């Protein structure tokens, strides 16, 4: 069967350490596919390979049947894969709205000369800015960031910055969204909100989501499939129920929580 997105025998070494070792999985369209595992097990590294920041030593990453290994990150964004970062990588000295507008970059076309000189109210440049601001404004409303619209990102709380980063990824209108620990550093209320929004993004926007998350309530609650790994290798992949009952998962990951 031809999958929407799959990873085949993906491996990468850092100075002899196999951070990701022969990982394969398949993601169907419009799924929430979660990757869990203890810290250092290689989850973020998988995202970095998918988004083109790291080049795998071996293996394939197939999106809509095409191998995207070797494409630069900006080309991968154009293919339709957006992401957030575990440690938040926003443009700190810009306002929330400008951060989201950067997410529109690949959909905008203004060139240097028109940008420099075509500035009437009715010009193509002004029209493009307006149209895309309008789209960004919808995302700001969706994530309830209206109050912070014009604030500098560096002045926001950690939880709000996580949201801005999610907003920026959404502004790209991706087909696949990679979320690296979206609820980390959020309070209970914010966690509840982001869980609902992620579900909305899947259901209403039809986006396929790859999710790395430590909050087990959230993972078990919203994932269609869960992939468990430890020290670069796969432990098990399955539904929430299948995963929760796997002895190695209990031992390696959930175990300490149950004590």
């Amino acid at each position, binding site marked *: 069967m031809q999958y929407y997105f799959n990873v085949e025998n993906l491996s990468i070494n850092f100075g002899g350490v196999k951070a990701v070792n022969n990982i394969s999985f398949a993601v169907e369209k419009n799924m929430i596919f979660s990757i869990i595992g203890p810290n250092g097990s290689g989850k973020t590294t998988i995202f970095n390979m998918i*988004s*083109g*920041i790291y080049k795998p030593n071996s293996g394939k990453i197939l999106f809509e049947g095409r191998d995207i290994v070797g494409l*630069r*990150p*900006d080309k*991968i*964004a*154009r293919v339709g894969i*957006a*992401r957030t*970062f575990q440690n938040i*990588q*926003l*443009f*700190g*000295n*810009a306002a929330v*709205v*400008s951060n989201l*507008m*950067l*997410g*529109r*970059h*690949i959909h*905008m076309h*203004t*060139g*240097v000369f028109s*940008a*420099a*000189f075509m*500035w009437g*109210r009715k010009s193509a*440049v*002004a029209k493009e*800015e*307006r149209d895309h*601001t*309008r789209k960004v*404004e919808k995302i700001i*409303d969706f994530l309830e960031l*209206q109050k912070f619209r014009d604030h500098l990102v560096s002045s926001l709380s950690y939880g709000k910055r996580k949201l801005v980063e999610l907003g*920026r990824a959404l502004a*790209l209108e991706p087909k696949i969204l990679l979320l690296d620990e979206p609820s980390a550093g959020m309070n209970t209320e914010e966690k509840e909100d982001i869980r609902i929004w992620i579900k909305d993004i899947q259901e209403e926007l039809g986006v396929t989501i790859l999710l790395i998350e430590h909050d087990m309530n959230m993972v078990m609650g919203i994932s269609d499939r869960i992939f468990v790994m430890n020290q670069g290798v796969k432990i098990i992949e399955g539904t929430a129920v299948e995963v929760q009952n796997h002895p190695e998962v209990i031992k390696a990951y959930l175990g300490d929580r149950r004590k």
Partner: protein
Amino acid sequence: MEMKREYYEDIQYFKKKWVMVVAAVFILLLFTIPIYFTGYSLFILNLIMVYVIVAVGLNILVGYTGQISIGHAGFFAVGAYAMILLMTLLHMPFILALVLSGFISAFFGFLLGLPSLRVKGPYLAIVTLGFGMTIMHIIGQANLFGGRLGLQAPPLDVGVTQLGLSWVLTTDVQKFYLILIITIIMVVAARNIMKTRIGRAFVAIRDDDIAAEVNGVDLLIYKTLSFAISAFYAGVGGGLFSFVLSFVEPFQFNVLLSIIFLVMIIVGGLGSIVGSIVGAVLITFLQYSLLKNVRELPVLGDWLVAISQKWFTVIGLENFNSMILGIIIALIIIFEPKGINGIWLRFKKYCLTWPFK
């Protein structure tokens, strides 16, 4: 909650009416400058405007895109020499030659932008430094560029002689208006570019180049573009410079000039167009006007002259000028790392929040 918003407001020039009025009055005042200033002052003002253009361009690269260049005197030289050669050898009309000088310089900027994809920070600084020095040496050696003697600028004919239109500008006042109009166009264009996707891509690269790339910003295109735009500004500035001074020679374009350009934008405020302008005005003014007059200060002047003659040989007071300039720069940077623009921002915030905080 549905918020009604005028989406145009983000890119509007003037969010408030009074700002528009102030800006209009300010620009009108600029046009009256030749009434109050003449002779040497006007010459300095022309020089200041040339440096404003260069500083704005440099800030696009350094302040907005987060790259470094200690070679901008090189682009400045390329523009200055290209301008003279295009007009004298190829008899190009002024405007065409000026724009082309900008593009020739931009092409060098593009080339210098290529290594910025691989090297960063201090390494990029060295590459650009090397570029600036190479340019200076090439123009100092080649006969085409007049060697050490330099080149004489042709008459400043802003007409198109090919069409039988000729209008030679001879006075500093005429040059002032020409340069003022070009400066305003360049500044407005820079501000416009920075407000669009291109400016946002630059800022994204500055703040986090990986995040920029992951959001679809092609680093190859945008880093080289930033270098090219910045070099274009320096090239146009250089083109005008050759007419302000009427002649160009290699030593005008030494490393110190590149550093002075950087000082302008750091003192004015990185990542701020207005800051670039203020920095260029202030530093040029300090260099050419204020510190040149140290000698005429009552008591202190004689005193400083005596000290500099005793302790700093060769050029005496000149050393004092650079020292005082250096100290002023150091003080500004120590106390306000965001430059004069930072002081302004804090003042604005203070006014907005006044009785409350």
